[in-house]
């Protein structure tokens, strides 16, 4: 192994810029770290070079543990996006700098320098100054300088970002050529997917500090394992599906016969990926010899030379929806690319009815947690937004934000504020402003959009109206709802409060998903509400429920323990929270009509008195009546 990264972590303030990244890079390989801006890929590169220290984790270069070594001793060549040539030195002196630092004699330096100038195609230009060269030429000098002292590793940080498209193409080819000739292990960081495809032996996709997937370009394109990778590497159509009895179902449609698909998700949910080129269009269903997806209308046709790109909107497919869900969408939008004439049709027109067939598909086994953040004017927006960033980094799933107010201007204002805070820190957030009643709008969105988690904020100044809104929301929600309180810190310890069988199994699994992604430890707490001194043996099903719950979590690699307390439920929960320093409280929602000692306002009482955020999950009635 040429380069080994082990569990690298780097924080800037409260943000995890590099979140437990581990990676092995082979000898002589050109690995591309691909990801959007702010994903942490440049930071990883600088940690490898020794320019930034990691908070934890180790770096090995060719079998040497270089984690504690300064950059001078790591023997890595680094090429910056802005070239960073020494302006006061000639090209020749720039290239020779690394050799001079190693006290290589003059004659040898000169020979090596000429060799490198020839290698990068700048022969004879040694006497020039950087300011006399074009951008592309300067970057070639930077590469030559980085290679001059024969380092063991070459690191490039978005090296072509500052150049025109045409020059970029030339330099990419040149770099690939040079890398092959010199056979040096190389890591290149970029956000350009085309560049990654062209250069990489393998691509590592990074988002929000996490390394999502690593693999050869073709493998990542055809069979990604992660939704973000699927959508980042090119056009993608993703539909929500489920596996049942060994078959993959897209709503009412079955994709295959009795092939075994297993997913980690116990509900059997998965995502089905169709690349735009995997779909075929026809004017009638009979023309298609392949499985039919559905019928729709052409909304846009783009001419791209040999290809045509079409945007279609299919009629709603029962039981399935497009991922990530967009607001106010009717039907299913689909992207198709085709070569005109190859299917017998020259062109499709806008407004034309078409039938879509599936030529090929790929199953993605994991479904990320899709988060909807809702706010009205009464909530403490900044606290809510800060927690959203924290949560998004833990879930690495799509985030949508909806602001509800009494009139459009106010709602837009909230959206603007949210945009300012969120956009620099998270990419791909969906924003919408809505007018109406908060609870109606927000719950409507959650129902329509296939969200997994609703996040709302606590009112800044609790008034009877805002309290009432929160009550109503909790009462009516049928989805996990997280109420953000106070200042968010991290998600490190999660407390599941069971009082009589809730949260149910599904909810422990859901909370477990968050726990796993956030790397948090969990505790299952059972509070025996009977105040009697006599230690009454707890009902056997409680014990098995707790044990099963803990086991489910442990099977998913989450630290879990079980605790028992006795007393007034709310007080005991609050006591446990304080003593255990928990960051997140998970409680079951008490449905109305239940008659237990606990009472229907347990959830609301906890909401009022808890100091940390509360996730309210809808409880299964399980063994209770």
């Amino acid at each position, binding site marked *: 192994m040429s380069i080994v990264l082990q569990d690298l972590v780097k924080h800037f303030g409260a943000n995890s810029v590099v979140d437990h990244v581990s990676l092995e890079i082979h000898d002589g390989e050109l690995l591309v770290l691909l990801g959007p801006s702010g994903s942490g890929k440049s930071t990883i590169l600088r940690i490898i070079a020794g*320019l930034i220290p990691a908070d934890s984790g180790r770096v090995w270069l060719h079998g040497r543990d270089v984690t504690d070594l*300064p950059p001078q001793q790591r023997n890595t060549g680094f090429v*910056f996006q802005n070239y*960073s040539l020494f*302006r006061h030195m000639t090209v020749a002196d720039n290239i020779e700098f690394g050799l001079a630092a190693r006290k290589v004699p003059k004659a040898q330096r000169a020979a090596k320098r000429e060799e490198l100038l020839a290698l990068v195609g700048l022969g004879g230009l040694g006497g020039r100054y950087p300011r006399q060269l074009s951008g592309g030429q300067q970057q070639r000098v930077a590469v030559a300088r980085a290679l001059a002292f024969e380092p063991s590793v070459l690191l490039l940080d978005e090296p072509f970002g500052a150049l025109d498209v045409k020059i970029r193409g030339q330099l990419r080819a040149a770099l690939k050529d040079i890398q092959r000739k010199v056979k040096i292990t190389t890591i290149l960081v970029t956000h350009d997917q085309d560049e990654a495809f062209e250069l990489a032996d393998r691509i590592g996709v990074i988002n929000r500090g996490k390394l999502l997937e690593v693999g050869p370009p073709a493998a990542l394109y055809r069979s990604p394992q992660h939704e973000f990778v699927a959508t980042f590497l090119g056009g993608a159509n993703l539909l929500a599906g489920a596996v049942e009895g060994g078959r993959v179902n897209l709503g009412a449609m079955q994709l295959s016969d009795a092939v075994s698909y297993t997913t980690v998700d116990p509900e059997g949910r998965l995502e089905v990926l169709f690349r735009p080129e995997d779909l075929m269009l026809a004017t009638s269903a009979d023309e298609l010899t392949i499985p039919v997806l559905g019928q729709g209308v052409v909304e846009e046709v783009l001419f791209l030379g040999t290809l045509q790109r079409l945007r279609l909107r299919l009629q709603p497919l029962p039981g399935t929806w497009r991922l990530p869900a967009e607001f106010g969408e009717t039907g299913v939008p689909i992207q198709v690319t085709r070569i005109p004439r190859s299917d017998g049709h020259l062109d499709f027109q806008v407004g034309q009815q078409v039938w879509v067939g599936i030529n090929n598909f790929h199953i993605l086994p994991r479904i990320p947690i899709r988060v909807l953040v809702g706010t009205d004017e009464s909530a403490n927006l900044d606290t809510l937004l800060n927690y959203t960033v924290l949560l998004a980094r833990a879930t690495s799933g799509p985030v949508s934000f909806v602001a509800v107010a009494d009139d459009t201007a106010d709602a837009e204002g909230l959206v603007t504020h949210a945009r300012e805070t969120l956009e620099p820190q998270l990419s791909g957030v969906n924003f919408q402003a809505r007018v109406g009643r908060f609870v109606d709008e927000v719950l409507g969105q959650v129902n329509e959009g296939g969200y997994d988690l609703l996040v709302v904020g606590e009112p800044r100044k609790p008034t009877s109206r805002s309290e009432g809104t929160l009550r109503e929301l909790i009462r009516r929600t049928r989805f996990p709802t997280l109420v953000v309180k106070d200042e968010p810190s991290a998600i490190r310890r999660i407390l599941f409060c069971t009082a009589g069988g809730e949260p149910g199994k599904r909810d422990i699994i859901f909370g477990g998903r968050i726990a796993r992604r956030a790397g948090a430890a969990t505790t299952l707490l059972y509070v025996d509400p009977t105040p009697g001194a006599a230690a009454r043996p707890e009902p056997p099903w409680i014990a098995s429920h707790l044990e099963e719950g803990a086991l489910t979590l442990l099977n998913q690699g989450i630290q879990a323990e079980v605790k028992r307390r006795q007393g007034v439920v709310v007080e005991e929960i609050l006591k446990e929270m304080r003593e255990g320093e928990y960051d997140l409280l998970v409680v079951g929602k008490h449905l109305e009509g239940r008659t237990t000692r606990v009472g229907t306002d347990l959830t609301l009482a906890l909401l009022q008195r808890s100091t940390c955020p509360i996730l309210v999950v809808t409880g299964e009635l399980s063994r209770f009546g």
Partner: protein
Amino acid sequence: MYSAKGFLPKLLIGIVLAYLGVLIFLPIAAIVQGAFSKGIDALLEAFSDPTLWQAFVLSIELAIAAVIVNAIFGTIVAWVLVRQNFFGKGFFNALIDLPFVVSPVITGYMIILLFGRQGWLAPFVNAANVKIAFDVPGMLLVTVFVSLPFVVREVMPVLREIGTEPEQAAHTLGASGWRTFWRVTLPGIRWGLLYGISLTLARALGEFGGVLVAGGAVSGKTETATLFIYRAIEERQNIAAYGVALILAVISFVVLIGMEVLRKRTDLEVGS
């Protein structure tokens, strides 16, 4: 830059030229005229006064010393202020400009307060057997202080503009901190540094009130060229005064040309 067309821009240029002319050229013309007003022999006789040359030598010594001290410490201060972060950084940054707002006379007086016979630091001064107040060391302290901000303020923006990346590049190429400083950072800031040094030199040469108070203006001992001119005027030795003023003006002119050349070099390199 568009060429001035029409009456109003031309009038504006005319006013500016007249203003500069009156403020700068007239006095210089007056100095030249005054120096030669009684003929070149009178001038040469005035130059035969040994205290005149002693005053020059002292001025130049103080100026060079101030340049050396401020070049070194100014660069270090600039580097710390740009590259490091620490509590109270903003405050220290503002303090650098203190010499601009404090009258040099007060600075000179502070030297007396600190190092004079009844000064705060008198015991240390006596123990070290050095005379600071009313002697050249005190004048040096004043000169260093009044010319302090120039190197710092000229180097800081250049350091900022260069950024840390060239230094980082040098580190990845195997250069130690020292080598990086000598071969990369210092050459990178050299024009800004030289410009700051020329400003320091000019300011140090022109210092008057502070070195007067701190030194006592004893001719032959603690009298700089500027102080000599003052004494010469008081003693109605006008030719001598004009003569020294003329030499100082010539030196200033040379420094000015140097500054202009350096400024152009800085712009040229920064613009690459």
